[in-house]
């Protein structure tokens, strides 16, 4: 076993300090903007000390970040010993961390732009017991060959383990075939475009835009703007509408581009009971997901995609890193034809039933899906109609819309029990189908309000583990008999 000490690539010093600097940009930008760009290096100017102070602090922080990055790079070492990955780092407080290879759940690779220039990769080592969504060990930047070496070492350690077991049992012979990893899903450019154009990323961009604007609020001379706004109104509502349209379209284009970059070349492969997801154009990501950590599978169809027969498949996984670090919902197929997705899932999990026949919510339960909404609808409509008299009456349209949505939700609510598997289907807007095995369900809860009791209906919630906390599926207002069937199914 090699006891060679490995270091991070020097570029990691830059990457670490850049990361630290990045988190300082926003506060500094705010300070600069709120100062109204009143900076001066002229000693006699009243802004002189202010400027010196600001740039001094900023420069000091940058210097510290750089030194920190260099220290991390100089002190961080890792090596392989006794079937463990061992890591040591720290300047004053030395930290050592030993991770047995068989405990490693996954190695996730991430290549940012800097990494790609130098042919490097960021490796995140994950075990089952990750704390707070942080990977156990993060190697900021190492050569790809070094990353492969870790993987090789890990595989060798695991094989040795397996061989020892074999010798003990000395009965079976497992053929270790190095099969080329079969690809189970690759997103075509066409699908990618559909994904990008129909994704909800637009909301994110809009809220980002709002945040930016609110940052500028100090320097926008509101009185002037509002004065102009009245002129604006005189010119015509048309122009405003046009501006809003333009902003919306721009936001949408940005979101499309972001999605395109993030999901470019999205591929799912299966290798030794592990799913490997790779994606990204500028920043390449590789996520590993052991099959046995999967707790439940969620098929989400938003109304638009449901109409066109597309779905998104999300995997709830215990531990491990999601896309955003602490989010453990891993998107397996961002966009896939429903039929194709069912076939693929059938191949992946042959023991599960992917064509459940749902037992639906009874007809008398229908009012429960929209009646509650009247609690907030009535005051809102009342207020709108009263204060915005003629046009406020349009808010009355909310009533039929709410009822229609309720009816739709009612039609979607259903469950099915098949052997060891529970399937739930429900919708808020998007239709969600949640399929899980009995042994993965952490607890089941029924809820029944006074009114539901009178009508003999009951809602059911099932919770599975997902990352550090759980995720819950809820089917509202099922027949009480059915809800109790689920309870007794879960009991035995």
């Amino acid at each position, binding site marked *: 076993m090699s006891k060679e000490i490995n270091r991070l690539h020097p570029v990691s010093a830059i990457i670490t300090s850049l990361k630290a600097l990045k988190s300082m940009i926003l506060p500094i930008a705010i300070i600069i903007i709120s100062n109204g760009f009143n900076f001066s290096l002229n000693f006699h100017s009243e802004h002189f000390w202010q400027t010196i102070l600001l740039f001094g602090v900023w420069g000091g922080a940058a210097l510290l970040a750089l030194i920190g990055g260099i220290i991390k790079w100089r002190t961080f070492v890792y090596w392989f010993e006794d079937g463990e990955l061992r890591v040591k780092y720290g300047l004053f407080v030395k930290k050592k961390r030993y991770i047995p290879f068989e405990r490693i759940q996954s190695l996730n690779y991430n290549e940012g732009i800097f990494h790609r220039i130098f042919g490097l990769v960021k490796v995140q080592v994950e075990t089952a017991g990750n704390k707070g969504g942080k990977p156990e060990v993060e190697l900021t930047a190492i050569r790809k060959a070094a990353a492969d070496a870790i993987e090789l070492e890990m595989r060798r350690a695991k094989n040795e383990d397996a061989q020892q077991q074999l010798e003990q049992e000395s009965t079976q012979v497992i053929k270790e075939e190095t099969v080329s990893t079969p690809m189970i899903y690759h997103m075509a450019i066409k699908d990618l475009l559909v994904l990008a154009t129909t994704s909800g990323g637009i909301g994110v961009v809009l809220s980002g835009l709002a945040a930016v604007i609110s940052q500028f609020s100090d320097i926008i001379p509101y009185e002037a703007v509002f004065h102009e706004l009245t002129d604006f109104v005189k010119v015509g509502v048309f122009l405003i509408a046009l501006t809003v349209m333009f902003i919306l379209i721009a936001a949408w284009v940005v979101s499309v581009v972001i999605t395109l970059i993030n999901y470019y070349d999205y591929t799912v492969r299966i290798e030794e009971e592990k799913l490997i997801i790779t994606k990204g154009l500028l920043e390449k990501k590789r996520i590993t997901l052991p099959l046995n950590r999967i707790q439940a599978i969620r098929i989400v169809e938003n109304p638009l995609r449901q109409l066109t027969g597309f779905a998104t498949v999300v995997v709830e996984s*215990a531990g491990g890193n999601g896309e955003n670090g602490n989010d453990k919902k891993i998107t397996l197929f961002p966009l896939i034809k429903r039929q194709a997705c069912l076939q693929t899932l059938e191949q992946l999990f042959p023991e599960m039933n992917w064509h459940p026949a749902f037992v639906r919510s009874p007809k008398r339960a229908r009012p429960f899906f929209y009646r509650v909404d009247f609690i907030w609808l009535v005051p809102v409509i009342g207020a709108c109609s009263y204060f915005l008299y003629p046009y406020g009456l349009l808010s009355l349209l909310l009533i039929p819309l709410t009822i229609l949505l309720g009816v739709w939700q009612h039609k979607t609510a259903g469950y099915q029990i098949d052997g060891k598997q529970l399937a739930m289907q429900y919708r808020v807007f998007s239709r969600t189908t949640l399929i899980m095995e009995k042994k993965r*369900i*952490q*607890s089941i*809860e029924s*809820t029944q309000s006074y009114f539901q009791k009178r009508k003999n209906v009951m809602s059911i919630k099932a919770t*599975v583990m997902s990352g550090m906390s759980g*995720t819950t599926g809820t089917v509202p207002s099922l027949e009480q008999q059915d809800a109790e069937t689920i*309870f007794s199914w*879960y009991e035995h």
Partner: protein
Amino acid sequence: MRAQPIHQISRKGLTVWRLYGVIQTLALLVVAGLASYGTYYFEWPSFIYWIAAAIVVLGILLLVLIFPKIRWERWRYEVREHEIEVQHGLFVVKRTLIPMVRVQHVDTTQGPILKKYDLGNISISTAATVHTIPALVMDEADRLRARISELARVAEDDV
């Protein structure tokens, strides 16, 4: 129709909940008092007195008298060999089923008020959820904790 879980929580639990209600009402009383003082001092419209009084009366009625009673009557639990079943709720009755195999650990906690009445809460944690049975007699809570951890150890895990 499923039978309710058999055990109720301690009668003293109701007293403690009423006490909590009294504390919450006292907080309301402070707010109401401030509002009344403001009304007197700044000559705000006099209906504020009535609202303040109504809030305090409602607080006594609901938080001290009615809600604790309903909650206490609703609260049921049962620890069986293979699962724990819990029922609670105020307007909405919630029933939860936790299999023994899913139980990861059991805690008992006791605050100052509960200690005075020799009561304790017991929290049952699974990998994803935490379920609390409140206001058990401390002996019962300790016994239950021991029993659950015993049963949970016996139950075979197949995750």
